[in-house]
């Protein structure tokens, strides 16, 4: 007889969602978090697309510490001198909001508290050292030599899952599976943020950037989100190209982003509150781990559920949905009192119909396109030179669009053939 029906390792969005789902159905749940308080270890470079929370917390939009809803979404190429953007503002999401900026220390604390209110036992400041395994079955977790038993263990450790890795349930990531995320939070008055970003009340700005100005062929992206009275911004650095370069520091890439002429004025006058970092999991469909087995399941980033195509970043939504699906699976397994691999394979059945897996599957190979010289160098260079000719007057006779485009293409390092091939691949992957 186990002490708990389920033990959840990690109180981020995935773990807390699983715990809320199970505890609210009367299951005996232990939620263990190494940070004290929950959320104090967690960093995010994304927007919360929170619709999945409806299923477990119908009142979340009224009760959760949400910063601002996304009204304005910008996707930009930043060159040394220019910013070329798609700037999409809409009133469409004013009533039914789709995304919110959040600060994870507050938000994760809220979710853990809701798990506790639902009846889960929430313990923070405790590091799980490993899994207790008997006859090839996970039977619990180990802390300081003591075993705590559970019929099922849900690993929700985030993108650097030491417990799952030590047990061989997840392999160590390769250069291409992860990117280095570095982040800064600035304090700025609510009024200044509203004015600077053309916002009102609780509406917010979410920007994603391609940092094509970086020297030495290093690829990195940037993000910038408005919170109530702070701004979250940061960079996501491709490890392969940073390694190949071998002479640039990750923290300098962060600083260069802050100092870009069109970024620096957005945080001007703000005071830096926090510097943080975490690697971001970016592995594709082919590198997904098997997310279940005898007595265990992997959820959220631990299972590799994240997605980025350069225009939208997703992670917390998959964390929440996979946590709920794992919770539902445990509830079913409890009815049959069967926590075998076969029984828990119902988690996989659920996943295969959900965006957590489908997005990865349908956009397989996306990473190669997102981290390409086409996106990071050729396209921004072409756009900069052609738009510069089309949108400004320089005293010369006007040229036709095709002439301008051809001239811009010839100014990039790519051949026309490369450009067509890579462009085709990009369109197909998108």
């Amino acid at each position, binding site marked *: 007889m186990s002490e708990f029906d389920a033990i959840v390792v990690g109180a981020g969005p995935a773990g807390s969602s699983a715990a809320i789902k199970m505890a609210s159905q009367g299951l005996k749940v232990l939620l263990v978090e190494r940070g004290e308080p929950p959320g104090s270890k967690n960093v995010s470079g994304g927007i919360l697309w929170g619709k999945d929370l409806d299923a477990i917390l119908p009142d979340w939009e009224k009760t959760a510490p949400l910063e601002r809803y996304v009204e304005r979404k910008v996707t930009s190429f930043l060159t040394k001198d220019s910013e070329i953007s798609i700037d999409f503002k809409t009133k469409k999401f004013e009533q039914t909001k789709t995304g919110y900026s959040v600060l994870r220390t507050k938000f994760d604390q809220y979710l853990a508290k809701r798990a506790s209110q639902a009846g889960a036992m929430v313990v923070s400041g405790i590091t799980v050292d490993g899994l207790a395994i008997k006859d090839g079955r996970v039977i619990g977790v180990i802390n300081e030599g003591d075993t705590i038993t559970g019929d099922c263990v849900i690993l929700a450790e985030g993108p650097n899952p030491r417990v799952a890795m030590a047990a061989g349930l997840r392999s160590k990531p390769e250069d291409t599976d992860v990117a280095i995320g570095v982040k800064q939070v600035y304090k700025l008055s609510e009024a200044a943020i509203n004015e600077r970003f053309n916002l009102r009340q609780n509406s917010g700005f979410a920007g994603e950037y391609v940092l094509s100005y970086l020297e030495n062929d290093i690829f990195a992206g940037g993000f910038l989100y408005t919170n109530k009275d702070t701004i979250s911004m940061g960079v996501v650095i491709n490890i392969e190209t940073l390694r190949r370069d*071998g002479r640039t520091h990750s923290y300098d890439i962060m600083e260069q982003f802050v100092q870009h002429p069109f970024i620096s004025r957005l945080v001007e006058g703000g005071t*830096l509150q926090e510097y943080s970092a975490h690697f971001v999991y970016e592995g594709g469909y082919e590198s997904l781990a098997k997310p279940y087995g005898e007595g265990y399941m992997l959820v959220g980033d631990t299972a590799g559920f994240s997605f980025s195509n350069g225009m939208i970043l997703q992670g917390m939504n998959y964390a929440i949905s996979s946590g709920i699906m794992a919770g539902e699976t445990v509830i079913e397994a409890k009815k049959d009192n069967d926590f075998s691999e076969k029984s828990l394979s119902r988690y996989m059945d659920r996943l295969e119909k959900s965006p957590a897996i489908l997005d990865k599957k349908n956009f397989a190979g996306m990473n190669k396109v997102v981290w390409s010289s086409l996106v990071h160098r050729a396209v921004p260079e072409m756009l900069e030179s052609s738009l510069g000719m089309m949108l400004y007057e320089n005293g010369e006779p006007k040229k036709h669009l095709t002439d301008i485009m051809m001239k811009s293409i010839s100014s990039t390092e790519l051949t026309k053939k490369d450009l067509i091939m890579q462009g085709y691949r990009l369109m197909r992957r998108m």
Partner: protein
Amino acid sequence: MEVEEKLALLNYKTDPEYAHITVNPKICETCPDHFCTFACPAKCYTLIEGKLNFKYEDCVECGTCDVACSHGSVAWTNPKGGHGIKYKFG
């Protein structure tokens, strides 16, 4: 702004008895690239007179060095309960 000033803003509950990350000096001695010194966002890895110096106290637990070191020198574990970085915003 220098990274040292940025790190000075952070709160840590340092564990004086347990270094959650250790490096193998023998491996680092012969390392041709010292990529850890470029990858680590918290500047925990530095070269002092050509020798690798590592301080776990500034670590923000991002996991980068474990991937960055391709020579098997880094042994990465989570800090013991409640220790390590303590973010206020996240």
